[in-house]
């Protein structure tokens, strides 16, 4: 029984410590708030009902431009409440792609194509839970992707903690220009888990986990690998499973100034490991302007079967630079200007966002000059959003 007594003593001491720390909350003790999380979230309390998203409409022009590849187009989102508990959303997104990227100019001919994607969603709030069901369809001349998602979030601990669970199943049909119909398929399963915690009246933090499994054709029929300098069709495994965990925190350090910190670790069964770190600063100028600056760093190690120029024939072989070793640094800024605000009726905002991304590949050679490939990309978003 000595062990039982010891456990009881430790637990009692832990709970007592929590109570004492929480009691000191008035002094602004952050330790108290963190210490209360585990027991507190379980202990629960009267929960506040979550809110439905606001009615809104967005019209956006987006552009991605980098070394011969340009993808741009319009996107539209409309969201409307049907009753006090239901909100419907619909979005439409067009990518007009003009591709003369390094992959294309070194192995094939430049091309143009259009991808169209729509999403339909339904949000339902019941008691202290919200449920979102959505479906998406993306169509290109040689690729069709359909997906269905369900996300559930539950507020606990007096509305201070929000737990979320999500699931997506997507099924793709893969084709090839010049080939009648589709020659293969791929299925994807995504499982999400998240917790968001309010730490203080101006500070919150969250942890997200996502597992993704794929089965089917996971490569590109156009891409080639290199073996002894000769081009051969790439051969990817037909299954992949990945995990990612992301931690982030956001707080208002001084009234009108907020700081955001994020970190994600990713790993998968293709032996890819990646780190993503992001640091952001948001500032509200008067009631009209909102400015957001951020820096993002991304780093990954290549897949087990990736090779710039293989010196032996293997079962799987790829020269997809998305699977290579590279580092990427991005600097971005977002701006929102409130053009019209009629309290309680509607608000119109003009938004602009720009991101510069510099990517340095370690083991992907630009075969035009024999040097490691370097890529600078520009991402632009211009949009009008209205809430009503």
């Amino acid at each position: 029984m000595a062990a039982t007594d010891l456990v009881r003593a430790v637990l009692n001491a832990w709970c007592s410590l929590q109570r004492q720390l929480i009691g000191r909350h008035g002094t602004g003790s952050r330790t108290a708030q963190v210490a209360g999380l585990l027991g507190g979230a379980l202990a629960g309390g009267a929960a506040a009902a979550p809110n439905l998203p606001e009615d809104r409409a967005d019209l956006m022009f987006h552009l991605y431009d980098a070394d011969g590849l340009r993808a741009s187009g319009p996107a539209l989102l409309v969201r409307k409440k049907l009753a006090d508990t239901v909100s419907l959303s619909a979005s439409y997104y067009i990518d007009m792609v003009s591709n003369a990227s390094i992959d294309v100019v070194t192995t094939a001919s430049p091309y143009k194509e259009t991808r169209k994607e729509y999403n339909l969603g339904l949000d339902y709030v019941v008691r202290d839970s919200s449920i979102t069901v959505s479906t998406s369809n993306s169509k290109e001349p040689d690729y069709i992707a359909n997906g269905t998602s369900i996300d559930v979030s539950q507020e606990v601990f007096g509305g201070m903690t929000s737990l979320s669970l999500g699931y997506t199943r997507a099924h793709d049909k893969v084709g090839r220009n010049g080939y009648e119909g589709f020659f293969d398929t791929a299925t994807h399963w995504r499982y999400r888990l998240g917790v968001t915690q309010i730490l203080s009246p101006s500070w919150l933090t969250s942890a997200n986990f996502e597992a993704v499994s794929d089965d089917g054709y996971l490569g590109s029929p156009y891409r080639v690998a290199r073996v002894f300098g000769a081009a051969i069709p790439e051969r990817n495994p037909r299954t992949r499973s990945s995990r990612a965990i992301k931690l982030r925190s956001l707080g208002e350090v001084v009234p009108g100034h907020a700081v955001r910190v994020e970190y994600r670790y990713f790993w998968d069964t293709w032996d890819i490991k990646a780190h993503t770190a992001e640091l952001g600063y948001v500032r509200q100028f008067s009631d009209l302007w909102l400015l957001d600056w951020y820096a993002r760093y991304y780093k990954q190690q290549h897949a087990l079967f990736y090779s710039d120029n293989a010196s032996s024939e293997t079962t799987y072989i790829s020269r997809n630079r998305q699977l290579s070793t590279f580092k990427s640094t991005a600097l971005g800024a977002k701006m929102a200007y409130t053009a019209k605000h009629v309290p309680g009726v509607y608000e119109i905002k003009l938004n602009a966002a720009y991101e510069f991304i510099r990517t340095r590949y370690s083991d992907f050679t630009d075969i035009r000059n024999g040097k490691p490939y370097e890529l600078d990309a520009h991402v632009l978003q211009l949009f009008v959003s209205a809430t009503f």
Partner: protein
Amino acid sequence: MLHSVSARALSLALLAGVSLFAGCSSIEPWVKPYERERLSLPILQFSRDGLADKHQEHVREVREAARGATGVQGGGCGCN
């Protein structure tokens, strides 16, 4: 012997569970609903514009091997 060990483990687990739920139930949410006004400010949102976030996520997901856990609901699309 095995039975005794199992019983002891079970009693420990039960005791831990009871202590968690009963002993700590006095912990109250320390940020009251009326103190959460600032948390609804635009600067304290992880995501302000869903459509723009989805585009940004798409740009990253088709160029990087890493994916998931972004907090963007519904995840990325399955397109290539």
